[in-house]
């Protein structure tokens, strides 16, 4: 898994990420089934993604209304996506 904001970037509630072998659309689909709505795609930033060499990303946006349960649900969704697509490739 790759989280796009670099470690030295200012802290933000917006986290773009990719998972090796899992398209962001599929991540978003699985997240939705875990009760988590995230965006997937270009995010209207095609030139930047092209520069980064990335086709698309998943993007989670955290707000003051989110709590640890929401974060855990997203983490579960990421694990489920990794597991689903890893199982098939093995």
């Amino acid at each position: 898994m790759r989280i796009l904001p670099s470690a030295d970037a200012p802290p933000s509630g917006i986290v773009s990420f990719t998972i090796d072998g899992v398209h962001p659309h599929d991540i978003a689909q699985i997240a939705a089934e875990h009760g988590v709505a995230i965006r997937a795609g270009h995010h209207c930033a095609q030139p930047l993604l092209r520069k980064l060499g990335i086709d698309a990303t998943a993007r989670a946006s955290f707000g003051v209304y989110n709590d640890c349960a929401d974060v855990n649900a997203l983490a579960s969704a990421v694990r489920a996506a990794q597991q689903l697509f890893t199982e098939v490739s093995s």
Partner: protein
Amino acid sequence: MMATQALYKKILLQHYRQPHHKCEGSLDDADVVRRGANPRCGDEIEVGLYLDAQRLRQVVFRGRGCSICIASSSMMTDAVLGRSITDARDLCAHMHQWFQQGDGADLAAPPADLQALSAVRAYPARRRCVLLPWDALAEALDSL
């Protein structure tokens, strides 16, 4: 996650991981090439046709997309290979109708080797993913 299992059937995931007739190189020698793109997500599929008289001697695709898009592309190439141009056009139209009408429509099911895609009918947001290669194929056939 029952819904996930329903959508991501094993056969569909196998086509995603090991797509049939996926080309990594040039399609310059194809008789006709058409590209389908979904600008919202960046998915792009190019479909290349190689003709023998009025039949599809070879059908290949290249590009990038989600699992549904790549699996649909792979299954599509299997399904139309060897068909006449007319038959392939009919199948494109059928698939388009089958997905546009959504789950529960009484349109006849497509050939058995495409029915693993049926779960996508319940996900309107993914219809564009599944139809992207079919739209490119239809455009290629219409150009002949």
